[in-house]
C-alpha cells in the first residue's frame, strides 16, 4: 500500500493520485490529512463538473493564440486546464493548439514542463513501490 505523508499535497501530487485511482486495479487511498483529503475531493468534484459541462472542450479552445501577458500567463494556477489535460480520458486530445501556444509563450512552457515533471515524479512514487511488492 502506498502512503503519502500527512502534509498538504500539491496539485501535481493530487493529479497523480487521481490518475492512479482511475487506472490502478489495486489502488487504495493513502492516509491523508483532512486538508489534503478535502482538496482531492474538491478537485474530483470540479473534474465532474467540467466533464458534465459540454464547454470542457473549450479548455483547449480557450488557449490563447500567441504569448500571454507577462504578469498573467494562461497556465498559471489554471487548475481546470490541468484537470482536463491529465484526467479527462473521454476523447482524444487535439493538442496542436496547446503546442503552438507553449512555443509562443515561454512562461507557459516553463509552467507546463514544471507541472509535467512534478506530476510524473509523484506518479512514479505511487506506482513504483507497488510494482516492487
Amino acid at each position, binding site marked *: 500500500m502506498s502512503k503519502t505523508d500527512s502534509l498538504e499535497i500539491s496539485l501535481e501530487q493530487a493529479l497523480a493520485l487521481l490518475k492512479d485511482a482511475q487506472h490502478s486495479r489495486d489502488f487504495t487511498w493513502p492516509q491523508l490529512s483532512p486538508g489534503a483529503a478535502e482538496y482531492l475531493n474538491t478537485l474530483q468534484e470540479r473534474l465532474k463538473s467540467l466533464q458534465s459541462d459540454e464547454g470542457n472542450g473549450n479548455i483547449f479552445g480557450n488557449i490563447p493564440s500567441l504569448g500571454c501577458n507577462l504578469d498573467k500567463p494562461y497556465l498559471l494556477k489554471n487548475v481546470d486546464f490541468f484537470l482536463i*489535460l*491529465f484526467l479527462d480520458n473521454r476523447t*482524444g*486530445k487535439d*493538442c*496542436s493548439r*496547446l*503546442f*503552438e501556444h*507553449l*512555443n*509562443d509563450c*515561454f512562461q507557459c*512552457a*516553463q509552467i507546463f*514542463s*514544471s507541472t*509535467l*515533471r512534478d*506530476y*510524473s515524479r509523484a*506518479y512514479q512514487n505511487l506506482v513504483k513501490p507497488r510494482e516492487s511488492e
Partner: protein
Amino acid sequence: MLRFQNSPSFSALLECCTDQTSPYWEAGWDEFLNRYKEMIYKFVVNRCFNWKVERLGMQLNDVVNDIVSEVYIILLNKLYTYRVEEGEQNFRYWLATVCNRASGSYMKRRSIAAFIAEEIEDVEKDLKKTTERFQTYIRTFEIDTRFELYEHLVLILRTSGEQKRNVERDIHIFYLYVWADLPKQIIANGHPCFADDPNINEGNIDNVIHRFRSFLRKTANL
C-alpha cells in the same frame, strides 16, 4: 578630408554623418566616434555580461569588438532614421537600443551555435553532453535573456520545413528535452498528449532532436 573649425552641434553632426556627399562626412564620423565610442562599448559590455559570454568559451574582448563592429555598420546604414528633433538626450536611448539589439542578435546566434558546434561521434553520448552543456549555459541567464533566446530558437525551428501539424509538436518535444531537461521516458509516457500516441516514443524523440540539431547546424553554416 575637411576638419571642423569648431565642435559641431548635435544636429549638425548627424547631418554630416548621414550625407555621404558632404565634405565633412569623414570628419563627422571621426567626431561621432569621439563622442559616442565609449558609450557604445559600455552598452555592449553590459549586454555581454548578461549573456555570460565566458560560458560559451569566448573571450569577452573578442566578442565585444565583434559586436561593436556590427553596431558601427548598423549606424552607418541606419543613423539617418534617428529624428534629430528628438535631441541628444533621447539619442543615447536610441543608441542603447541599437547596441542591445546588436548584442542580443550576436549572442543568440552564438548560443545556438554552441549547442550544435561539435561533430557527432558517439550519437547518444554526444547528444547527452551537448544538451547538458546547453542546459548549464541557459541556467546562468536572467529570465529576460532566456526569454529572448527561447523566442529566437522557436523562430528558427519554425522555418525548418516540417509540416505545420508536426513542427509545433516537435518544437515542444525539443524544448522539453533540450531546454527543460525532462527525461525521454516522461515525455513519451507521461505527457498526456503523447501517452497514447504510438508515434511518440523514446526513439522518435531522438529523431526529433537530431533532425533539429542538423537543421540548426545547416542554418548556422557549421
